[in-house]
Protein backbone atom coordinates (compact mmCIF):
# COMPACT_ATOMS: atom_id res chain seq x y z
CA UNK A 1 0.00 0.00 0.00
CA UNK A 2 1.34 3.42 -0.94
CA UNK A 3 2.26 5.69 1.94
CA UNK A 4 -0.20 8.60 2.16
CA UNK A 5 1.34 12.09 2.07
CA UNK A 6 -0.51 13.51 5.03
CA UNK A 7 -2.61 12.65 8.05
CA UNK A 8 -6.17 13.61 8.83
CA UNK A 9 -6.17 14.69 12.44
CA UNK A 10 -9.34 14.87 14.45
CA UNK A 11 -9.41 15.83 18.14
CA UNK A 12 -12.79 15.42 19.82
CA UNK A 13 -14.06 15.58 23.37
CA UNK A 14 -17.43 14.52 24.70
CA UNK A 15 -18.96 17.94 24.14
CA UNK A 16 -17.21 19.29 21.07
CA UNK A 17 -14.78 18.87 18.24
CA UNK A 18 -11.56 20.68 19.13
CA UNK A 19 -9.47 20.38 15.99
CA UNK A 20 -9.90 18.86 12.59
CA UNK A 21 -7.68 19.02 9.54
CA UNK A 22 -4.84 17.75 7.41
CA UNK A 23 -1.47 17.64 9.12
CA UNK A 24 2.04 16.36 8.37
CA UNK A 25 3.05 15.15 11.81
CA UNK A 26 1.49 14.60 15.24
CA UNK A 27 3.13 14.00 18.61
CA UNK A 28 0.85 12.32 21.12
CA UNK A 29 1.35 11.94 24.90
CA UNK A 30 0.74 8.20 25.26
CA UNK A 31 0.45 6.62 28.68
CA UNK A 32 3.71 4.75 28.06
CA UNK A 33 5.50 7.83 26.76
CA UNK A 34 5.08 10.34 23.97
CA UNK A 35 5.18 9.10 20.42
CA UNK A 36 5.36 10.79 17.07
CA UNK A 37 3.15 9.82 14.15
CA UNK A 38 4.00 10.37 10.50
CA UNK A 39 1.86 9.35 7.54
CA UNK A 40 1.96 5.59 7.03
CA UNK A 41 2.20 4.74 10.73
CA UNK A 42 1.15 1.23 11.66
CA UNK A 43 -2.39 1.01 13.15
CA UNK A 44 -2.32 1.55 16.86
CA UNK A 45 -4.65 2.16 19.74
CA UNK A 46 -3.07 4.02 22.62
CA UNK A 47 -4.24 5.34 25.96
CA UNK A 48 -3.38 8.97 26.63
CA UNK A 49 -2.09 10.64 29.73
CA UNK A 50 -1.96 14.31 30.73
CA UNK A 51 0.14 16.22 28.25
CA UNK A 52 0.20 18.22 25.08
CA UNK A 53 -0.51 17.13 21.56
CA UNK A 54 1.73 18.79 19.05
CA UNK A 55 0.85 18.83 15.39
CA UNK A 56 2.64 20.30 12.42
CA UNK A 57 1.17 21.49 9.17
CA UNK A 58 3.96 22.69 6.88
CA UNK A 59 6.06 24.99 9.09
CA UNK A 60 3.28 25.80 11.46
CA UNK A 61 3.12 23.92 14.75
CA UNK A 62 0.07 23.96 17.02
CA UNK A 63 -0.48 22.62 20.52
CA UNK A 64 -3.50 21.22 22.33
CA UNK A 65 -3.60 20.38 26.05
CA UNK A 66 -5.22 16.99 26.66
CA UNK A 67 -5.84 14.77 29.63
CA UNK A 68 -6.75 11.13 29.32
CA UNK A 69 -8.62 9.41 26.55
CA UNK A 70 -7.49 7.43 23.55
CA UNK A 71 -5.69 7.87 20.29
CA UNK A 72 -6.50 5.77 17.26
CA UNK A 73 -3.71 5.81 14.74
CA UNK A 74 -4.25 4.59 11.18
CA UNK A 75 -1.85 5.06 8.26
CA UNK A 76 -3.71 8.14 6.99
CA UNK A 77 -5.62 9.28 10.04
CA UNK A 78 -5.22 10.07 13.73
CA UNK A 79 -8.30 10.32 15.92
CA UNK A 80 -7.97 11.62 19.46
CA UNK A 81 -10.87 10.81 21.78
CA UNK A 82 -9.94 12.93 24.77
CA UNK A 83 -11.57 13.48 28.12
CA UNK A 84 -10.40 17.09 28.11
CA UNK A 85 -8.80 18.93 25.22
CA UNK A 86 -8.15 22.65 25.04
CA UNK A 87 -6.37 24.89 22.55
CA UNK A 88 -4.34 27.83 23.86
CA UNK A 89 -7.05 30.44 23.30
CA UNK A 90 -9.59 28.49 25.36
CA UNK A 91 -7.37 28.33 28.40
CA UNK A 92 -8.07 30.61 31.33
CA UNK A 93 -4.53 31.46 32.42
CA UNK A 94 -5.42 33.04 35.77
CA UNK A 95 -7.49 30.03 36.72
CA UNK A 96 -4.74 27.62 35.72
CA UNK A 97 -2.18 29.63 37.70
CA UNK A 98 -4.41 29.57 40.75
CA UNK A 99 -4.85 25.81 40.35
CA UNK A 100 -1.06 25.33 40.16
CA UNK A 101 -0.62 27.33 43.34
CA UNK A 102 -3.33 25.42 45.16
CA UNK A 103 -2.02 22.03 44.11
CA UNK A 104 1.57 22.99 45.05
CA UNK A 105 0.43 24.07 48.50
CA UNK A 106 -1.44 20.86 49.04
CA UNK A 107 1.50 18.72 47.97
CA UNK A 108 3.93 20.72 50.11
CA UNK A 109 1.98 20.16 53.32
CA UNK A 110 0.44 16.71 52.91
CA UNK A 111 -2.52 16.27 55.22
CA UNK A 112 -3.55 12.80 56.31
CA UNK A 113 -6.69 12.73 54.19
CA UNK A 114 -4.97 14.20 51.12
CA UNK A 115 -5.67 12.42 47.89
CA UNK A 116 -2.10 12.59 46.70
CA UNK A 117 -2.72 11.23 43.23
CA UNK A 118 -5.53 13.69 42.58
CA UNK A 119 -3.48 16.68 43.69
CA UNK A 120 -0.57 15.53 41.54
CA UNK A 121 -2.80 15.15 38.47
CA UNK A 122 -4.40 18.51 38.98
CA UNK A 123 -0.95 20.10 39.21
CA UNK A 124 0.10 18.32 36.04
CA UNK A 125 -3.03 19.35 34.12
CA UNK A 126 -2.66 22.98 35.13
CA UNK A 127 1.00 23.05 34.18
CA UNK A 128 0.26 21.61 30.75
CA UNK A 129 -2.52 24.18 30.28
CA UNK A 130 -0.16 27.02 31.13
CA UNK A 131 2.47 25.68 28.78
CA UNK A 132 0.01 25.42 25.89
CA UNK A 133 -1.39 28.88 26.61
CA UNK A 134 2.15 30.26 26.69
CA UNK A 135 3.00 28.72 23.33
CA UNK A 136 -0.09 30.03 21.64
CA UNK A 137 0.67 33.55 22.90
CA UNK A 138 4.19 33.51 21.47
CA UNK A 139 3.16 32.43 18.05
Amino acid at each position, binding site marked *: MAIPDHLTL*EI*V*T*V*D*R*SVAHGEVDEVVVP*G*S*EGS*FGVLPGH*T*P*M*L*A*ALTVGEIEYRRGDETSYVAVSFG*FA*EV*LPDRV*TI*LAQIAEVGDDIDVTRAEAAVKRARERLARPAAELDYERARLSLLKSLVRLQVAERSRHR
Partner: protein
Amino acid sequence: MKAIAASRLRRAQDRILGARPFAIQMQRVLSGLAAHVDTGAHPLLARRDPDAPSRPTLLVVVTADKGLCGGFNTTIIKEAGGVIAAGPGSGPVLGLVGRKGRDFFGKRGFDVRFELVNLFSQLQYGHAQAIAREAAAAFTRDEVDSVKLVYNEFKSVLQQRVVVDQVLPIPSIEPAGGGAEHLPDYLYEPGPAAIFDTLIPRHIEIQFWRALLESAAAEHAARLTAMDAASNNATEMIEDLTLYMNKVRQATITREIIEVVSGAEAL
Protein backbone atom coordinates in the same frame (compact mmCIF):
# COMPACT_ATOMS: atom_id res chain seq x y z
CA MET B 1 -44.45 28.04 25.38
CA LYS B 2 -43.29 28.19 21.83
CA ALA B 3 -40.72 30.84 22.73
CA ILE B 4 -39.47 28.75 25.66
CA ALA B 5 -39.16 25.67 23.49
CA ALA B 6 -37.28 27.70 20.88
CA SER B 7 -34.68 28.95 23.35
CA ARG B 8 -34.25 25.52 24.96
CA LEU B 9 -34.00 23.94 21.54
CA ARG B 10 -31.10 26.20 20.63
CA ARG B 11 -29.16 25.07 23.70
CA ALA B 12 -30.02 21.40 23.24
CA GLN B 13 -29.10 21.60 19.58
CA ASP B 14 -25.66 23.05 20.38
CA ARG B 15 -25.07 20.25 22.85
CA ILE B 16 -25.96 17.41 20.54
CA LEU B 17 -24.07 18.88 17.60
CA GLY B 18 -21.02 19.16 19.85
CA ALA B 19 -21.37 15.62 21.14
CA ARG B 20 -21.96 13.88 17.84
CA PRO B 21 -18.38 13.82 16.48
CA PHE B 22 -17.10 12.05 19.58
CA ALA B 23 -19.89 9.49 19.60
CA ILE B 24 -19.48 8.78 15.90
CA GLN B 25 -15.69 8.40 16.10
CA MET B 26 -16.03 6.17 19.14
CA GLN B 27 -18.55 3.99 17.34
CA ARG B 28 -16.26 3.71 14.32
CA VAL B 29 -13.26 2.67 16.42
CA LEU B 30 -15.27 0.18 18.45
CA SER B 31 -17.03 -1.42 15.50
CA GLY B 32 -13.69 -1.98 13.79
CA LEU B 33 -12.35 -3.42 17.01
CA ALA B 34 -15.33 -5.70 17.64
CA ALA B 35 -15.00 -7.14 14.13
CA HIS B 36 -11.59 -8.68 14.63
CA VAL B 37 -10.86 -8.86 18.34
CA ASP B 38 -11.30 -12.16 20.11
CA THR B 39 -14.71 -12.05 21.79
CA GLY B 40 -13.23 -13.42 25.01
CA ALA B 41 -10.97 -10.38 25.34
CA HIS B 42 -13.46 -8.47 27.47
CA PRO B 43 -16.75 -9.46 29.15
CA LEU B 44 -18.64 -6.77 27.24
CA LEU B 45 -17.42 -8.10 23.90
CA ALA B 46 -18.85 -11.55 24.55
CA ARG B 47 -21.30 -13.00 22.03
CA ARG B 48 -23.98 -15.42 23.01
CA ASP B 49 -23.84 -19.01 22.07
CA PRO B 50 -26.70 -19.37 19.54
CA ASP B 51 -27.58 -22.81 20.91
CA ALA B 52 -27.91 -21.63 24.49
CA PRO B 53 -31.44 -20.98 25.75
CA SER B 54 -32.31 -17.43 24.81
CA ARG B 55 -32.51 -14.82 27.49
CA PRO B 56 -34.48 -11.62 27.19
CA THR B 57 -33.33 -8.37 25.67
CA LEU B 58 -32.86 -5.28 27.79
CA LEU B 59 -34.76 -2.55 25.98
CA VAL B 60 -33.94 0.98 27.05
CA VAL B 61 -36.75 3.34 26.02
CA VAL B 62 -36.02 7.06 26.04
CA THR B 63 -39.12 9.26 26.16
CA ALA B 64 -39.67 12.82 27.39
CA ASP B 65 -40.54 13.84 30.93
CA LYS B 66 -43.31 16.13 29.74
CA GLY B 67 -46.11 16.05 27.22
CA LEU B 68 -47.40 18.74 24.88
CA CYS B 69 -44.90 17.84 22.22
CA GLY B 70 -47.03 16.37 19.47
CA GLY B 71 -46.50 12.73 18.62
CA PHE B 72 -43.06 12.60 20.22
CA ASN B 73 -43.85 10.19 23.05
CA THR B 74 -46.53 8.22 21.21
CA THR B 75 -44.24 7.29 18.32
CA ILE B 76 -41.52 6.13 20.70
CA ILE B 77 -43.94 4.05 22.73
CA LYS B 78 -45.42 2.56 19.57
CA GLU B 79 -41.99 1.67 18.20
CA ALA B 80 -40.95 0.14 21.54
CA GLY B 81 -44.20 -1.85 21.52
CA GLY B 82 -43.27 -3.15 18.05
CA VAL B 83 -39.83 -4.24 19.24
CA ILE B 84 -41.40 -5.98 22.24
CA ALA B 85 -43.94 -7.80 20.04
CA ALA B 86 -41.23 -8.92 17.59
CA GLY B 87 -38.95 -10.25 20.34
CA PRO B 88 -38.95 -13.72 21.87
CA GLY B 89 -41.98 -14.93 23.81
CA SER B 90 -40.73 -14.26 27.32
CA GLY B 91 -40.74 -10.53 26.59
CA PRO B 92 -37.95 -8.09 27.23
CA VAL B 93 -36.67 -6.47 30.36
CA LEU B 94 -37.25 -2.73 30.21
CA GLY B 95 -35.17 0.25 31.20
CA LEU B 96 -37.35 3.32 31.21
CA VAL B 97 -35.92 6.78 30.81
CA GLY B 98 -38.31 9.73 30.96
CA ARG B 99 -41.59 10.06 32.82
CA LYS B 100 -43.93 9.43 29.89
CA GLY B 101 -42.48 6.03 29.07
CA ARG B 102 -42.36 5.10 32.75
CA ASP B 103 -46.05 5.99 33.13
CA PHE B 104 -47.03 3.96 30.09
CA PHE B 105 -44.97 0.78 30.51
CA GLY B 106 -44.80 0.91 34.30
CA LYS B 107 -48.53 0.25 34.54
CA ARG B 108 -48.60 -2.64 32.11
CA GLY B 109 -46.87 -5.28 34.14
CA PHE B 110 -43.56 -5.46 32.29
CA ASP B 111 -40.38 -6.52 33.96
CA VAL B 112 -38.80 -3.12 34.63
CA ARG B 113 -35.14 -3.25 35.54
CA PHE B 114 -34.59 0.45 36.15
CA GLU B 115 -36.30 3.75 35.60
CA LEU B 116 -34.99 7.27 35.48
CA VAL B 117 -37.37 10.24 35.46
CA ASN B 118 -37.12 14.04 35.72
CA LEU B 119 -33.69 14.14 34.19
CA PHE B 120 -34.20 16.22 31.06
CA SER B 121 -34.40 19.60 32.79
CA GLN B 122 -30.91 19.04 34.19
CA LEU B 123 -29.33 16.56 31.85
CA GLN B 124 -25.87 15.46 32.95
CA TYR B 125 -23.28 12.96 31.87
CA GLY B 126 -23.84 11.19 35.18
CA HIS B 127 -27.27 10.10 33.94
CA ALA B 128 -25.71 8.32 30.99
CA GLN B 129 -23.18 6.73 33.31
CA ALA B 130 -25.94 5.41 35.55
CA ILE B 131 -27.78 3.85 32.59
CA ALA B 132 -24.56 2.38 31.22
CA ARG B 133 -23.75 0.84 34.59
CA GLU B 134 -27.14 -0.88 34.78
CA ALA B 135 -26.93 -2.10 31.20
CA ALA B 136 -23.39 -3.42 31.51
CA ALA B 137 -24.21 -5.16 34.79
CA ALA B 138 -27.24 -6.93 33.31
CA PHE B 139 -25.19 -8.02 30.32
CA THR B 140 -22.13 -9.28 32.16
CA ARG B 141 -24.24 -11.13 34.74
CA ASP B 142 -25.76 -13.05 31.83
CA GLU B 143 -29.27 -11.85 32.63
CA VAL B 144 -29.87 -10.53 29.15
CA ASP B 145 -28.67 -11.51 25.69
CA SER B 146 -28.49 -8.04 24.27
CA VAL B 147 -29.14 -4.41 25.08
CA LYS B 148 -31.15 -2.29 22.71
CA LEU B 149 -31.95 1.38 22.80
CA VAL B 150 -35.00 3.18 21.39
CA TYR B 151 -34.92 6.97 21.14
CA ASN B 152 -35.84 9.93 18.97
CA GLU B 153 -32.99 11.20 16.87
CA PHE B 154 -32.84 14.91 16.21
CA LYS B 155 -32.70 15.30 12.44
CA SER B 156 -33.91 18.84 12.05
CA VAL B 157 -36.35 21.16 13.76
CA LEU B 158 -39.17 19.74 11.68
CA GLN B 159 -38.11 16.13 11.76
CA GLN B 160 -37.43 13.54 14.41
CA ARG B 161 -36.62 9.98 13.60
CA VAL B 162 -37.19 7.00 15.88
CA VAL B 163 -34.03 4.93 16.07
CA VAL B 164 -33.51 1.44 17.45
CA ASP B 165 -29.84 0.83 18.20
CA GLN B 166 -28.12 -2.26 19.45
CA VAL B 167 -25.71 -1.28 22.21
CA LEU B 168 -24.53 -4.69 23.40
CA PRO B 169 -23.07 -6.90 22.08
CA ILE B 170 -21.22 -4.19 20.19
CA PRO B 171 -22.24 -4.57 16.55
CA SER B 172 -19.28 -5.21 14.29
CA ILE B 173 -19.33 -3.44 10.97
CA GLU B 174 -17.23 -4.62 8.07
CA PRO B 175 -15.42 -1.58 6.69
CA ALA B 176 -16.66 -0.41 3.31
CA GLY B 177 -14.95 -1.91 0.31
CA GLY B 178 -13.08 -4.73 1.90
CA GLY B 179 -13.08 -8.00 3.74
CA ALA B 180 -11.27 -8.95 6.87
CA GLU B 181 -7.81 -8.33 5.42
CA HIS B 182 -8.51 -4.59 5.30
CA LEU B 183 -9.20 -4.40 9.00
CA PRO B 184 -6.44 -2.68 10.90
CA ASP B 185 -4.60 -4.99 13.22
CA TYR B 186 -3.80 -2.61 16.03
CA LEU B 187 -0.82 -2.34 18.27
CA TYR B 188 -2.00 -1.62 21.78
CA GLU B 189 -0.29 0.66 24.23
CA PRO B 190 -0.52 -0.38 27.05
CA GLY B 191 -1.84 -3.90 26.42
CA PRO B 192 -5.26 -4.72 24.93
CA ALA B 193 -6.75 -5.62 28.31
CA ALA B 194 -5.92 -2.24 29.85
CA ILE B 195 -7.31 -0.40 26.82
CA PHE B 196 -10.53 -2.42 26.67
CA ASP B 197 -11.13 -1.99 30.38
CA THR B 198 -11.50 1.75 30.00
CA LEU B 199 -12.46 2.11 26.35
CA ILE B 200 -15.46 -0.22 26.22
CA PRO B 201 -17.35 1.02 29.30
CA ARG B 202 -16.68 4.55 28.09
CA HIS B 203 -18.06 3.69 24.68
CA ILE B 204 -21.28 2.45 26.21
CA GLU B 205 -21.67 5.58 28.30
CA ILE B 206 -21.12 7.69 25.23
CA GLN B 207 -23.77 5.85 23.22
CA PHE B 208 -26.34 6.42 25.98
CA TRP B 209 -25.20 10.00 26.42
CA ARG B 210 -25.71 10.67 22.77
CA ALA B 211 -29.18 9.11 22.87
CA LEU B 212 -30.15 11.34 25.79
CA LEU B 213 -28.93 14.48 24.07
CA GLU B 214 -30.58 13.51 20.78
CA SER B 215 -33.82 12.87 22.58
CA ALA B 216 -33.64 16.18 24.48
CA ALA B 217 -33.08 18.18 21.30
CA ALA B 218 -35.78 16.24 19.44
CA GLU B 219 -38.23 16.81 22.28
CA HIS B 220 -37.77 20.58 22.20
CA ALA B 221 -38.04 20.59 18.42
CA ALA B 222 -41.25 18.54 18.59
CA ARG B 223 -42.66 20.86 21.23
CA LEU B 224 -41.75 23.89 19.16
CA THR B 225 -43.64 22.57 16.13
CA ALA B 226 -46.57 21.37 18.24
CA MET B 227 -46.88 24.71 20.00
CA ASP B 228 -46.54 26.59 16.74
CA ALA B 229 -49.40 24.54 15.31
CA ALA B 230 -51.39 25.14 18.49
CA SER B 231 -50.96 28.93 18.25
CA ASN B 232 -51.97 28.84 14.59
CA ASN B 233 -55.05 26.80 15.38
CA ALA B 234 -55.97 29.14 18.19
CA THR B 235 -55.60 32.22 15.98
CA GLU B 236 -57.80 30.60 13.36
CA MET B 237 -60.40 29.69 15.95
CA ILE B 238 -60.39 33.23 17.36
CA GLU B 239 -61.05 34.58 13.87
CA ASP B 240 -63.94 32.16 13.30
CA LEU B 241 -65.49 32.89 16.67
CA THR B 242 -65.13 36.66 16.26
CA LEU B 243 -66.89 36.44 12.91
CA TYR B 244 -69.68 34.35 14.44
CA MET B 245 -70.04 36.76 17.35
CA ASN B 246 -70.38 39.73 14.98
CA LYS B 247 -72.97 37.90 12.93
CA VAL B 248 -75.06 37.09 15.99
CA ARG B 249 -74.85 40.67 17.24
CA GLN B 250 -75.81 41.99 13.85
CA ALA B 251 -78.80 39.64 13.71
CA THR B 252 -79.99 40.69 17.18
CA ILE B 253 -79.75 44.38 16.33
CA THR B 254 -81.59 43.89 13.04
CA ARG B 255 -84.36 41.97 14.79
CA GLU B 256 -84.77 44.65 17.45
CA ILE B 257 -84.94 47.39 14.81
CA ILE B 258 -87.60 45.43 12.92
CA GLU B 259 -89.58 45.04 16.16
CA VAL B 260 -89.34 48.77 16.90
CA VAL B 261 -90.20 49.75 13.33
CA SER B 262 -93.15 47.36 13.04
CA GLY B 263 -94.36 48.50 16.50
CA ALA B 264 -94.26 52.13 15.34
CA GLU B 265 -96.17 51.30 12.14
CA ALA B 266 -98.92 49.53 14.08
CA LEU B 267 -99.68 52.70 16.06
